[in-house]
């Protein structure tokens, strides 16, 4: 009897798997009319990326970008569906039509602009140098002979590499890259690296989590950059619509309220 039950259960589970096959999606051409017709939009995000998009204690996806997206697509009369993706696969997911947009602290870079089209920037960001409180490091120059860490594949690494002479003066001759910013910060606290270079927005989040009194953010930075929303190149009409909605949102009270909720101040631009 028990055996039959187990087999029946497994059969049911496997049926569920194959019943879930999706229809092949058409990805050529502008998909905005299709999106409007079906009434929902699929937003891709890395659900480990606090505070822009991550999961809270109960497993719900929350964050600054998520709140902003809800508001924006509410205005456009579209239901928002959140699809967690692996960050290294984001452009593949977008161009194969699995998701309709990337909105998750997505830094605008020249390289990425070849693969996706970006909306107008909505947030300004800097690549800052974070050290322990009493390090005395307050400029890029002071990083000579020091161990410098950053997140692998992030725009921070690109920003550091814009200063090749400085990089070759580091202890080890190159930045030490970690899988996540969290690990870089743990190593900084353990005293094995002297400085971490990271997005200011992310850095401020980790500093507030780990204790403000422990860290120092240097006055000098590794350059400024901006966050944007990534869409498929073909979706020109969608881009136009989203840009105007975004502009409206930036000026509205609601947009400023969301910014204050997550960062304590209005940093939308």
């Amino acid at each position, binding site marked *: 009897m028990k055996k039959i039950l187990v087999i029946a259960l*497994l059969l049911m*589970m*496997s049926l569920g798997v194959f019943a879930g*096959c999706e229809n092949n999606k058409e990805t050529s051409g502008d998909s905005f009319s299709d999106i409007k017709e079906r009434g929902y939009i699929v937003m891709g995000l890395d659900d*480990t990326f606090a505070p822009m998009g991550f999961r809270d204690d109960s*497993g719900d996806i929350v964050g600054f970008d998520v709140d902003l997206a809800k508001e924006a697509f509410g205005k456009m009369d579209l239901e928002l569906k959140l*699809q967690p993706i692996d960050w290294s696969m984001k452009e593949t997911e977008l161009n194969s039509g699995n998701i309709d947009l990337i909105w998750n602290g997505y830094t605008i870079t020249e390289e990425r602009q070849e693969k996706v089209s970006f909306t107008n920037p909505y947030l300004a960001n800097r690549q800052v140098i974070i050290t322990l409180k009493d390090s005395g490091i307050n400029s890029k120059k002071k990083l000579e002979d020091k161990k410098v860490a950053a997140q692998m594949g992030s725009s921070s690494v690109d920003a550091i590499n814009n200063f090749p002479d400085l990089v070759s003066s580091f202890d080890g001759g190159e930045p030490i890259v970690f899988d996540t910013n*969290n690990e870089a910060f743990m190593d900084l606290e353990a005293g094995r690296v002297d400085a971490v270079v990271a997005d200011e927005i992310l850095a401020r989040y*980790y500093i507030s989590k780990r204790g403000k009194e422990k860290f120092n953010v240097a006055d000098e930075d590794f350059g400024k950059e901006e966050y944007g929303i990534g869409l498929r190149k073909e979706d020109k009409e969608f881009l136009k619509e989203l840009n105007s909605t975004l502009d409206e949102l930036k000026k509205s009270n609601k947009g400023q309220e969301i910014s204050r909720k997550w960062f304590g101040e209005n940093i939308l631009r």
Partner: protein
Amino acid sequence: MQDVYNVLPSLLEGLINTIKIFLLTLSLSIPLGIITALIRLSSKKGLEITVRLYIWIMRGTPLLLQIVFIYFGLPIIGVSLNRFTAVIIAFVINYGAYFAEIFRSGISSIDKGQYEGARVLGLNPIQTFRRIILPQTVKRVLPPVANETITLVKDTALVYVVGIGELLRAAKIASNRDATLIPLVTAALMYLILTAILSKVFGRYEEKYAYYR
């Protein structure tokens, strides 16, 4: 302790996905493995070469690559699967290949005298396989199958690449959010409990089959 309690709901949600992938893969890949092993041992040349090629490809490339290929690569030729289906197919055909080799070694380790004895007793080939060969094979392959099964528990973490949440991903998310290692330690304990249960189950089976000695 409070921290552990806080991350439990999201970790348990991840654990359910991990177990789902594990059970589905195991229950579909073992039959596939047995069938593949029998074809590999059969005398049909064309089929045998096809199966060899299949095993070579599945064991010769990383499982992560196979998942990426099935989910992101197949849509190019018009086969578009949803995330979960793609992952299960990748796991089943990958683990099927490993199980096939385990079963093949098990079946061919049975002494020729067993087949001869069965024939003397008047059993036909199907009866011989079901009543004589298979029970002895199962007994011999239990330890390597247990090994493979435990590896499978940990391999389920690879589904992160198509964005499916599971135990390790849930732990990483919580670790990033709270900036502590506690969620990862909690996840490690859950994996240990899971594999302890599996070891126990396989230990029972080994005892049960011990009477053939």
